[in-house]
C-alpha cells in the first residue's frame, strides 16, 4: 500500500479498524502503518472519521473490530491494549487534541508532569523534570515559560505545552488533530519546522488538517479518509491540490471566482472606536464597508477581532466612537443591529452560533422567533417554523435527518449552513463573517464562499474577519489588517501581496501603512 522503505520496520500498525456509532460507520476496515521519522498527513472531509481513528489509536475509543500494534524494542510488533490512554502513553503514543487537554488552573510544568509520577508520592520535586524539559525545549525549539498558569498562555504556547507533554514521555508517535486550526500563519510555519526537526530525530508524526497547502508542504505521506474508509495513502510528492480535493470529496471542485459587482454606499461605518484593555482592546478604529464589497480583515487571532465583532454585533458598548449602519446610529443590542439589517456569522459556531440541544428548525428561526412570521400573541406558529426549516434545508443543502433533528449532532459544515441560511436569507445589508470557514473541509468551505459572494452580488456589505490569507486574497475586494487593536486603512487587494500582509499581521509596517 505504501511505498515506504520496506526494510524499515513500522513503529505502529493499524489493521482492519472498524468503528460504528449506532448506525453510522465512522471507520471502516482501515489499515495504516507508520514508520519512524515520517510525517503523515491525514486528510478528509468533516466527519470522514479522522478524529475517531486517532481516538482509537490513543485509547479514547475502543474499535469494534481491528487491532492496533506497536513496535517493541526488538523490532517486532505487539498488540496495544485498547481503550486505555495510559497504555497508549506507555507505548510511546502522544496526542495533541484539537481541543487542548490542559488543566488551566495549573502551570505548564504541572500539566506536563501530571500522571508521570505516582499519585502516592508525598512530595513533588520538579528539579530533575525541569532539567530534562529544559533540554527538550532547547533541542526542539519549543520554548515556553513553564511556570505560568496555562490560563495565561496564548493558544500557540498552550500547543507547545501539549507537544512537550508528549515529548517528555518519550513519545515515538505524535498525533496532532488539526493543530493549525487555531494558529497564525507564522505560528503554523514554526510548528511545522519543529515537527520536521523532531521527525528527523526519529519521531513519527500524524497530523490532521483541512489546509491543503500545509498538507502538501509539510508531510511525507498523505492518507485520505472518505466516509470512514481509507481511500488513498500516497507519498506527498505525488499529490497535488486538485487531485486531493477530488479524492476527498469524490467529485471535482472548482474554486469560486469573483465577479464584478458595483460598489454601493457605505453601509457599515465605524468611527474612532476604542474599548477594552490588554489583548482584547481596540484603539481608535475607523472602517467603512460599502454595499457590494467584501472587506477582509487580516490579523492574528487575539488582536482585537473579538472585541470588534462584539461591538459590531451589538453585544458590547465601545468606550468611545460610534457605529452606523446605513447611516443610522444604533442602540448597542443584538436585536437592534439585526433589525437594521446586520447579520453575523460568529467565530465559534458551536458556542455562539447554535443551540446544540435544540432542533435544526428551532436554530433556523432563533433570530426571528419574535417576528410576526413565526408567532402570534406570543404563541409559536409551528407550521410556519416547519416550513421555514424545510425550505432552508433544501435551499442550503443542510445534511440532516430533518428539521426536528438535534443540531448538536450535525457536522461543523452543516452547522455552518444553518447559520448561513438563517442569516443570509434575510437579504442583509451588512454581513459580519468571523472565521467563517475555520475547521471546515474544502467542500464546506466552497459552499460558504459561494454564499458570501451571492450576498455581495445582492449588494450587501461584508466584513470578513479571517486568519487565512488564502481565503482573504480570494474573497476580499479590499484588505485591512488588525494588530494590537489598531486597524489599518483597507487597501485594494490587487495592490497587496501575501508577505506584505503577513508582515503587517506580525506588527511590522503597520504604522506607515495606517
Amino acid at each position: 500500500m505504501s511505498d515506504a522503505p520496506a526494510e524499515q520496520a513500522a513503529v505502529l500498525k493499524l489493521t482492519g479498524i472498524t468503528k460504528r456509532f449506532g448506525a453510522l460507520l465512522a471507520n471502516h476496515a482501515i489499515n495504516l502503518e507508520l514508520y519512524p521519522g515520517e510525517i503523515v498527513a491525514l486528510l478528509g472531509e468533516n466527519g470522514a472519521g479522522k478524529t475517531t481513528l486517532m481516538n482509537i489509536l490513543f485509547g479514547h475509543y475502543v474499535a469494534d473490530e481491528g487491532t492496533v500494534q506497536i513496535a517493541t524494542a526488538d523490532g517486532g510488533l505487539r498488540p496495544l491494549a485498547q481503550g486505555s490512554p495510559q497504555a497508549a502513553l506507555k507505548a510511546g503514543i502522544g496526542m495533541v487534541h484539537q481541543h487542548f487537554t490542559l488543566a488551566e488552573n495549573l502551570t505548564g510544568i504541572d500539566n506536563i508532569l501530571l500522571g508521570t509520577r505516582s499519585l502516592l508520592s508525598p512530595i513533588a520535586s520538579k528539579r530533575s523534570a525541569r532539567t530534562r524539559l529544559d533540554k527538550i525545549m532547547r533541542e526542539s525549539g519549543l520554548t515556553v515559560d513553564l511556570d505560568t498558569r496555562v490560563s495565561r498562555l496564548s493558544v500557540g504556547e498552550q500547543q507547545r505545552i501539549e507537544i512537550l507533554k508528549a515529548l517528555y514521555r518519550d513519545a515515538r508517535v505524535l498525533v496532532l488533530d488539526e493543530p493549525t486550526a487555531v494558529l497564525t500563519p507564522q505560528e503554523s510555519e514554526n510548528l511545522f519546522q519543529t515537527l520536521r526537526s523532531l521527525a528527523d530525530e526519529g519521531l513519527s508524526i500524524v497530523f490532521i488538517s483541512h489546509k491543503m497547502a500545509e498538507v502538501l508542504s509539510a508531510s511525507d505521506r498523505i492518507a485520505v479518509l472518505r466516509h470512514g474508509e481509507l481511500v488513498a495513502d500516497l507519498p506527498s510528492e505525488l499529490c497535488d491540490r486538485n487531485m486531493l480535493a477530488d479524492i476527498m470529496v469524490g467529485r471535482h471542485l472548482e474554486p469560486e471566482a469573483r465577479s464584478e459587482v458595483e460598489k454601493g454606499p457605505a453601509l457599515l461605518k465605524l468611527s474612532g472606536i476604542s474599548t477594552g484593555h490588554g489583548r482584547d482592546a481596540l484603539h481608535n478604529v475607523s472602517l467603512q464597508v460599502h454595499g457590494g464589497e467584501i472587506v477582509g480583515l487580516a490579523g492574528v487571532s487575539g488582536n482585537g477581532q473579538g472585541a470588534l465583532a462584539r461591538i459590531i454585533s451589538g453585544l458590547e458598548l465601545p468606550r468611545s466612537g460610534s457605529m452606523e449602519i446605513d447611516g443610522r446610529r444604533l442602540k448597542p443590542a443584538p436585536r437592534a443591529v439585526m433589525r437594521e439589517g446586520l447579520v453575523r456569522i460568529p467565530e465559534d459556531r458551536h458556542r455562539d452560533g447554535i443551540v446544540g440541544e435544540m432542533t435544526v428548525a428551532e436554530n433556523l428561526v432563533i433570530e426571528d422567533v419574535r417576528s410576526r412570521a413565526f408567532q402570534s400573541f406570543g404563541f409559536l406558529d409551528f407550521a410556519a417554523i416547519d416550513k421555514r426549516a424545510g425550505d432552508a434545508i433544501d435551499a442550503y443543502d443542510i445534511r440532516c435527518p430533518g428539521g426536528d433533528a438535534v443540531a448538536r449532532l450535525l457536522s461543523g459544515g452543516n452547522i455552518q449552513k444553518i447559520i448561513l441560511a438563517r442569516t443570509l436569507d434575510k437579504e442583509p445589508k451588512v454581513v459580519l463573517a468571523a472565521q467563517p470557514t475555520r475547521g471546515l473541509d474544502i467542500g464546506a468551505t466552497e459552499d460558504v464562499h459561494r454564499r458570501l459572494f451571492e450576498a455581495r452580488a445582492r449588494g450587501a456589505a461584508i466584513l470578513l474577519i479571517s486568519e487565512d490569507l488564502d481565503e482573504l486574497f480570494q474573497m476580499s475586494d479590499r484588505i485591512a489588517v488588525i494588530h494590537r487593536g489598531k486597524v489599518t486603512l483597507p487597501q485594494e487587494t490587487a495592490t497587496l501581496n501575501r508577505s506584505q500582509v503577513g508582515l503587517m499581521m506580525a506588527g511590522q509596517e503597520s504604522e506607515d501603512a495606517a
Partner: protein
Amino acid sequence: MEILDILVNPNFWAAAIRIATPLIFGVLGALICERSGVLNLGIEGIFTAGAMAGWMAVWLGADLWTGVAVAAAVGGAFGLLHAVLTVPFGLSQHVSGIGVTLFATSLSYFAYRTALPDVSSPPRITPFQPLKIEGLSDLPFIGTALFQQTPLTFLALFLVLAVAFILNRTPLGFAIRAVGDNPAAVEAQGLSVFGLRVGAVIVGSALMAIGGAFLTMSAFDAFFFGMVNGRGWICIALVVFASWRPGKALLGALLFGAFDAFQVRLQTEVGAFVPGQIFLMLPYLLSIFALVVAARKADYPRALLKPYFKGQR
C-alpha cells in the same frame, strides 16, 4: 463596651473554635469534592449519618477512635453512592446530592429508632475529653481558647494543613485540581477521571462524616434527631466563601463559629435587644457577599457540576 468584653474573653474564642470544628471537617470535605469537580449536597445527610454511626459504634462498645473510623467509613460509603451516581452515571449533582441527604438522614433515623425503640431519654456515651497539654493549657489566653479543645479539634486543624499541603504540593493534589478543571486533561495523561473523582468524593464525604461525629462524640454525648440542623449546608457556603482554599476555609469556619458564639453571648449579656436571628443571618449574608466579590476572580473548579463521559465532548 460589652461587645469588646466578649471579644477579649478567651472562653468566647474557645466557643468559636468548638462551634467551628464540625464545620472545618465539613468544609474541607466539601472542598475536596468540589476541587475534583463534584458538588456534594449529600453533606447534610452525611453529617447526620456520621453523627449517628460514630455514636452508635461507641455506644455498642467501641472505643472513641474506632467510632470516628466507623463514622468515616459510613460517610465514605454514602460518598461512594453519590460518586457512582454522579461520576460514571453523570446524574445531576444537585439532585443526587439532595437524594443522598434524604437517604442518609432517613436511614440514620430509621436505624437509630429501630435499634433503640424504647428509649425515653437519649442514651449517652463518654465523649472525647478536652486535651489538656501540660504547659500549653495554662498559657494565658491561648491556653483557654485553644488548648482545652478535644482531640478532634486538633485533628481538624491538622487536616487543614494536610489538605492544603496535598492540594498544593503533591502529585495527587495536582491531579485532583486538574480533574476539577478539565477532566480531559487528566484522561489524556493516562490518569483515571473516574478514580480520582470517586476517590475525592469518598475521602471528602468521610471527612464530612467525622464532622458529624464531632457533634455526638465531642460537642455532645448523645445522638438526637435534627441534630445537624443545617450545619452541612453552611459548609457548602463556606467553600465558596473560601474560594476553594483550605486556609480560607478554616478562616470562614472560625468566622462562622465566632458569629454564633457571639450571638449567644450577646443575648446573655444585654438581653435580646436585637433579635438573635439577625446575628445568625449575618454569616449567610456575609457568604453571599463574599461570593459576589469572589465570583469575579475566584478560580473555581471549571468542571464543577459538569459530568464527564469518556469520549464525549
